[in-house]
């Protein structure tokens, strides 16, 4: 962000306080100005991507920055000019709450639902304000500071979803008269939570006319384990193993995104080698994530062989990962200020071996799929999304790019020397399922290109910063020197002290923009840690995508969107 943007913002919104936090412009507005500010930001400042909506509870915050207990933050992005704007407003009465932004962005629908669910902040005028991550019978709002972290509730009944589904059906033109004439009726069907195509636990309640989906509502939260609440009880470093469990197909990308956000605010400059390591491993995990997505999508369209050509390579690649960090699926490979381990001896050769195998496997699979008309008939012109729709629903990553929007944080807000690499950002031409499928093959190829370049450029030297305030001292010092031991004790018991403040930072994960919104009270434990999982908003667009299509189309669409339960439900 440049200074002119900040001045322009201040000029445009004289009643708001405008500050800069890292490279984000933060606007504090009055509740009454909220809707006009958001609308103006979207229309005049090009902030057409609503990244996230979240609340903050200042109940136990030392010296809170405002008199109201709650605050709501809208994080917006102008993807053309790389401008992130956060709009914050205090909530004097959570029962009355704020006016909804769901008429400005479609993605606000789910974002605000989550905010209501977790903090109990009402959004007046919201079309569908229900629980989303927590179960329908759940009482209380878990991210409020007065909700005890170990409180348990017994929830017995499943949500019938009848009311929201019928409401949605009523809002559609379903050709009801024609159906009455034919003597048929709408059929209601539950797809999931245990259905082969949901690859986890997501539930879709659909209203069908034959096999055509008339209306669809989604129930998520089956894998909700309160990541954000847990994070508030752990030190910054202790949260890293928990981030593995967000998108478990690309666990290390979550690790990197998490520590990158903290390092950025705490002004920790990691070593060159660590930066390149994170690029190599991040891109490697992007490949693995895409392999899983393509393999699973292949199974869902009935091409089972495709699965083995892709998944075998992924499984073999885990051998490499386990040599590097001691675990196959759960890497836990980063630390604030560096990495858990440096590469092991001979990693270049192994990496090259795996890259070659992946190239071959993906090539075979692409040969089976790409030009095959059976697949093209299934995927082309199915569940199409226009660029405007995609942005409005808050899609990011390959799903957004397949709709023809060339937004990629690696290109638009480069970090870790991404501007030094030569690679392509593929975008789709139709925005259909076929593009969502094919774009991942292309991204695998581009990631391999980046890894090969980075492997040539990676410098030697240490991987961890030499700062006892940030990183654990070396074991040799701990065993032998009292100073090292003291630093070690301090780091373990208190954690990394991150300066007081609130900030947002995004990272281009395999599925899209993985953002972390932190509130720090200056201690070693995050006061609040909100994840912006790309899947969450992607799935929010699912009903709009599939309505009017057939069940089989919805299933391939679901697998090509690559919804991962771990990060969806947190």
């Amino acid at each position: 962000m440049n200074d002119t943007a900040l001045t322009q913002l201040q000029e445009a919104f004289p009643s708001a306080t405008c500050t800069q936090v890292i490279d984000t412009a933060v606007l504090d507005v009055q509740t009454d100005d909220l809707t006009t500010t958001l609308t103006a930001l979207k229309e005049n400042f090009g902030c057409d991507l609503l990244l996230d909506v979240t609340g903050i509870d200042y109940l136990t915050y030392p010296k809170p920055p405002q008199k109201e207990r709650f605050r709501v933050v809208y994080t917006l992005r102008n993807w053309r000019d790389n401008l992130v704007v956060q709009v914050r407003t205090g909530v004097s009465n959570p029962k009355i709450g704020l006016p909804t932004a769901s008429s400005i962005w479609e993605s606000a629908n789910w974002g605000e639902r989550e905010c209501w669910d977790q903090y109990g902040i009402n959004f007046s005028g919201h079309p569908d304000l229900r629980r989303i991550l927590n179960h329908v019978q759940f009482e209380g709002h878990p991210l409020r500071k007065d909700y005890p972290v170990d409180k348990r509730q017994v929830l017995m009944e499943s949500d019938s979803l009848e009311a929201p589904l019928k409401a949605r059906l009523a809002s559609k033109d379903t050709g009801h008269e024609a159906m009455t004439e034919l003597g048929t009726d709408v059929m209601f069907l539950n797809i999931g939570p245990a259905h082969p195509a949901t690859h986890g636990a997501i539930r879709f309640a659909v209203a069908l006319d034959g096999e055509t989906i008339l209306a669809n509502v989604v129930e998520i939260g089956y894998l909700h384990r309160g990541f954000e609440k847990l994070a508030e009880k752990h030190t910054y470093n202790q949260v890293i193993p928990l981030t593995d469990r967000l998108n478990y197909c690309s666990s290390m990308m979550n690790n990197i995104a998490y520590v990158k956000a903290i390092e950025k605010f705490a002004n920790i400059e990691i070593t060159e080698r660590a930066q390149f390591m994170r690029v190599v491993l991040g891109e490697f995990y992007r490949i693995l994530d895409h392999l899983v997505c393509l393999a699973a999508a292949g199974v869902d369209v009935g091409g089972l062989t495709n699965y083995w050509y892709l998944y075998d390579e992924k499984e073999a690649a885990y051998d490499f990962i386990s040599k590097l960090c001691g675990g196959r699926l759960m890497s836990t490979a980063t630390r604030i200020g560096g990495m858990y381990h440096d590469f092991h001896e001979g990693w270049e050769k192994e990496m090259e071996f795996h890259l070659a195998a992946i190239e071959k496997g993906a090539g075979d699979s692409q040969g089976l799929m790409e030009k095959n008309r059976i697949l093209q008939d299934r995927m082309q012109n199915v569940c199409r999304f226009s660029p405007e729709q995609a942005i409005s629903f808050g899609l990011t990553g390959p799903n957004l790019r397949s709709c023809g929007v060339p937004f990629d944080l690696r290109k638009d807000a480069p970090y870790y020397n991404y501007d030094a690499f030569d690679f392509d950002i593929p975008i789709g031409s139709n925005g259909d399922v076929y593009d969502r499928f094919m774009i991942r093959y292309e991204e695998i190829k581009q990631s391999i290109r980046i890894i090969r370049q980075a492997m040539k450029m990676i410098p030697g030297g240490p991987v961890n910063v030499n700062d006892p305030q940030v990183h654990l001292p070396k074991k040799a010092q701990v065993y032998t020197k009292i100073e090292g031991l003291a630093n070690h004790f301090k780091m373990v018991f208190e954690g990394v002290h991150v300066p007081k403040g609130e900030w947002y930072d995004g990272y281009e994960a395999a599925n899209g923009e993985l953002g972390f919104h932190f509130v720090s009270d200056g201690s070693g434990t995050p006061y609040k840690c909100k994840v912006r999982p790309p899947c969450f908003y992607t799935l929010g667009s699912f009903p709009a995508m599939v309505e009017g299509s057939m069940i089989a189309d919805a299933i391939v669409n679901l697998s090509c969107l690559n919804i991962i339960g771990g990060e969806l439900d947190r």
Partner: protein
Amino acid sequence: MILTLTILLAVIIAIAWAAFNAAYLVLAERRGAGIIQRRPGPNINGPFGLLQPPLDGIKLMAKQLIIPDGADKFMYISAPVLVMCPAIMSFVALPYSDWLQAQNIDVGLLMVFAFASMGTMGIVFAGWSSRNKYSLMAAMRSVSQAVAYEIPMIITALTITLMAGTTNLDAIVAQQSENFFHWNIFPLFGETHNILMPFSFLIFFICSMAETNRAPFDLGEAEGELVAGFHIEYGSMGFGLFFMGEYANIVIGATLATIFFLGGWSCPFGLFPGVWWFLIKMYAIIFTIIWIRWTFPRTTIYGLLNLSWKILIPASLVNLLLTAGLMKVF
């Protein structure tokens, strides 16, 4: 009396042959799929996993038969039988060599098609009686699929009958027995042949895959979207019978293709005709069917119906007309 016993024996052998094929084709399919997919497949039980089918059978029979609440009991139980029995019945009319045949029937072709059509009824029974929306949808799909593909298949068979002038399967083979180039699939040689035969073979092959619910036309079970399709509520041997019925149908399809187009038990070089040639040809076709299944994704139900109603049925009709015309001219 002796005649009755011979017929009985022949029928029993036909049944045993059908069951044996169905069981071991499951193994062949699993091994074949494994090898295509870079994994070994079932190879633990016995040499090359050869004991797998009987052990699977024992396992399935040992399992409890669960009838879902509210299911139509009679239909639910009779459905697997309705799939398996007609398939086995068809074997009675199939000739494997000039002497190896359970019963030489003059209308053998008609009989095989008549029984093959009945299998669909079992699928509908299963889908309807399970009281499950997924299985019901799969049953609906299966019916429309069976209707759509039976038409071009029978029209193609009609083309063959037109040329051969008989519905006796023995006689159809006998006409092709001279050598390689007298097989019906080759367009140019032999007195009855015409240029359209490869197309007829293609249509027949596609239809027989669709008729037997094989990928890429396995819309009836479509495990991605309809979980397991019409047999979603079946466990135990009920499921086993559906499975075996599918493979028995594959054998019938491959046998018919061999008889109609590949010269049955005749040798390509005019030497030592016999049942082994028949088996080689038949299993080559079955291998192709398995190979295709493990190569391609599944179509959609509309894609499947379009293929039949818009391409295969008109093509087979034109094929029939042209064949008739060619026969008149030459």
